[in-house]
């Protein structure tokens, strides 16, 4: 697609924010147009990194599950961790990557709650790995406009 989507969204967002919004009345519509411009700016940021961050995150989570599965005594949870760890992303469509990411992050919540309840070195190690990944995942999702 040419012009590039990023360029296109940059230009449209700029036009909405700085050319169109100031001339729109009443104030509610002006504000809505301005917000739409800022939204497009964030869509532009996400469009560029969408597949990369999802692929990376899914890979990290699967590796984490494979390592954790070796120590998890709960048979049912261990099997699900092994199964998820052995998975891969067959499609790179963002919607497909999102679906796997949702499933993997739901399993991450379960694993996190499980290791929090264990008093063992392996559990503390997995807990540390999970927190590292949660910090990293937050950085992957960060927007330039974010207040914090």
């Amino acid at each position: 697609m040419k012009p590039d989507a990023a360029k296109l969204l940059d230009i449209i967002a700029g036009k909405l924010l700085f050319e169109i919004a100031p001339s729109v009345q009443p104030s509610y519509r002006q504000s809505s147009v301005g917000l739409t411009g800022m939204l497009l700016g964030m869509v532009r940021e996400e469009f560029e990194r969408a597949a990369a961050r999802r692929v990376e995150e899914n890979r990290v989570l699967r590796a984490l599950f494979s390592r954790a599965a070796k120590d998890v005594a709960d048979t049912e949870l261990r099997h699900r961790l092994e199964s998820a760890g052995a998975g891969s992303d067959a499609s790179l469509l963002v919607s497909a990557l999102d679906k796997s990411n949702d499933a993997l992050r739901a399993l991450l919540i379960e694993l996190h709650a499980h290791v929090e309840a264990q008093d063992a070195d392996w559990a503390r190690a997995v807990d540390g790995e999970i927190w590292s990944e949660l910090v990293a995942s937050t950085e992957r999702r960060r927007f330039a406009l974010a207040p914090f």
Partner: protein
Amino acid sequence: MQELAERIATYAAHRMPHATDVAASHVDRIHGGASRETYRFRLRHREAGREVERRLILRRDPPGSLIETDRAAEFAAYRAFHGTAVPVPEALWLESDSRWLDHPFFVMEELVGFEASPQAILAPPYAQHHERLAREKWSILGAIAAADPEKLGLAGALEVIAPADAWRRELDHWTRVIDEDELAPQPIIRAAIRRLRRAPPPPPGRLHVVHGDYRTGNFLYDSEGGIRGILDWEMAHLGDPLEDLAWSLNRVWCWGRDERVGGLTSKENAIRIWEQASGLRADPAALRWWELFSSVKGLAIWISGGHEYQEGANKDPVLAFSSIWLTNSQDRAALEAMGKLS
């Protein structure tokens, strides 16, 4: 807007049986809180031989919003604090009958000529008054915390609970919102919820009025650094005053994108002002609990707005914008509150 103006006038005439020539004009929708449709308008009428014009605000329930809130509680809070040290506009009429304007609503006075924007406060002429703005902001919050809900008549309008249940009621409520509205799993906030449940805060000595959304952006200020109106009481309830203090310190309100809470002052200074004004002590451990809770509540609000937008219940871009813009920041705030950000 002409049709709405006529319907507002019909309603106002119904509420003011002694008035004649009632007319509404200059109806203009504004962004005034994401939970209700907000309109400003002028109401003119004749009464006792003289012409009266008032500038008023209509807050009407929308089909969908960031948060499901109790308009009666919001109205009661405005009524209770009007004429006290907590500046609020005068609340006039509360109407639950949808036949007048399609949805329930209330009407209150418009405080004219002041600014509310959290971005404008960072620039001249307001930026030079941050010290006074901070002093007023957290002094007023202290006055809200010091108020007696019984004397204000709020004990009948807001749910009374045991002080020991204040944390649980709030955490249960916002967890339920996340359960119902999340569009994707939220591992950071789920970990935060588990941590909060493992170590609840000590109960407050008594029930206090909690504004529920006290932050830069929800008050009107002037160019001399004075705060002229506290708005958006839609989440007002009785509970632990540290909930309000912690919410006001929430990292996502650091509009200057630095360490200044609310874009105005240091966290330590804000707490000191609040303690002086309220006569209460902000126990550091309890405040940390409520700060982490603020991230749970914040995230619940952002994902709830995103859910409304995605489901098509409300297509106001402010819902999508807030959800996308603040969800990640709120996660970072939660990580910081849990000591996970280096």
